């Protein structure tokens, strides 16, 4: 079943176009890598799919329903209940402990604090950082922070997980450990993953790769907008 659908998505920052009409389908349980050169629109596409940014034109559908027309609050609730997001760094709230950070989506949705904490501890355990439950992000290494962030992204058992260069700030081994647990846990739950990365090694975790170049999907990864048009010189 198709989970997410992007049709002709256009988005600019001021006069600078980031996406110039992107079409993309993501199926249930599918792990899709979005790759391509810097400035190709990878992160912007992820933000549009996750409902963080509203596209200037085009449609984004979740299970067939348009979400780009939803209000900010409705998209926030969808993100909280159904999506999980994981960035390179900086998404944890510096003033809250690891357990509180992981429990945050549940707390915001109205779950009681004790129940939310129990769920948070379970997920910290799964990511192997249960002993850091009462530390604040400032007291953890980058890898530990990223594990907490992963636990938070998964605590609501989301249907889609959006990860934007999740290992970008980590060394190879730590990054691999984080990513391995992320993909494994996502696959166990049948969660789709949209994985933005510029590293082929990271893209290797996906079932499928989508190359974005100059704001459009580059089919076949040929490095040209229009593939193979009259190339002889």
């Amino acid at each position, binding site marked *: 079943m198709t989970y997410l659908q992007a049709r002709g998505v256009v988005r600019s920052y001021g006069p600078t176009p980031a996406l110039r009409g992107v079409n993309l389908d993501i199926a249930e349980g599918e792990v899709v890598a979005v790759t391509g*050169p810097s400035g190709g629109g990878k992160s912007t596409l992820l933000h549009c799919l996750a409902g963080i940014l509203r596209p200037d034109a085009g449609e984004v559908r979740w299970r067939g329903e348009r979400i780009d027309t939803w209000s900010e609050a409705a998209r926030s609730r969808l993100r909280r209940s159904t999506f999980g997001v994981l960035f390179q760094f900086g998404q944890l709230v510096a003033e809250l402990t690891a357990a509180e950070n992981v429990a945050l989506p549940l707390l915001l949705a109205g779950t009681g604090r004790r129940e939310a904490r129990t769920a948070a501890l379970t997920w910290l355990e799964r990511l192997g950082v249960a002993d850091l439950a009462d530390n604040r992000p400032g007291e953890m290494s980058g890898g530990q922070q990223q594990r907490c962030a992963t636990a938070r992204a998964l605590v609501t058992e989301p249907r889609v997980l959006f990860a934007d260069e999740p290992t970008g700030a980590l060394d190879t081994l730590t990054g691999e450990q984080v990513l*391995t647990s992320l*993909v*494994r846990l996502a696959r166990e739950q049948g969660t789709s993953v949209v994985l933005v990365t510029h*590293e*082929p*090694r990271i*893209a*290797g*975790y*996906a*079932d499928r*790769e989508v190359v974005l170049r100059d704001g459009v999907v580059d089919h*076949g*990864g*040929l*490095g*040209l907008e229009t593939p*193979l048009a009259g*190339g*002889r*010189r």
Partner: protein
Amino acid sequence: MNSERVSVPHVLLGLLAAGPRHGYELKRAHDERLPQARPLAYGQVYASLGRLQRDGLVVAAGQEREGGPDRTAYALTDEGRAALNRWLAETELPMPYVSSTLFAKVAVALLVDDVDRTRSYLAAQRQAHTARLRELTAAKTALSASLDDVVAADYAIAHLDADLRWLQTTLDRVADWHREVHS
């Protein structure tokens, strides 16, 4: 990818360091410890052992016959251990020659002066590399994977990753060059 020839005799010396083994056991151990390497042929094992015995690096440590062919066990000599240590202590020359088929094909394709063909070759190769990378990643992250599997897969993945980066950069360069020529 790994066009470099691996010194089979030295690998066998290493496998014997744990204790005497038969030729058949050595082949199995080799395939287990180096899971992604090209599997050894029996003939190759016995030929290498013969040479090592001739040079005094291994000795036959006994024979047993249990309703099958002759099974000669081999053991490491002191000289053999010294040779093994020397080999392990030697650093490998970092990429003395760029001599991969992949590189040669791209260089030749550019020489033949057909940009489209170069690009479609690069794109096809990129897809093949990516597919293999995915396969290896899946094998490595499987719950049943042993440390040997992971280390071997890591080695291959790191090389595929490097190749893929090179392929991507070259694709971009060809595209830039193409734009430059046709604008």
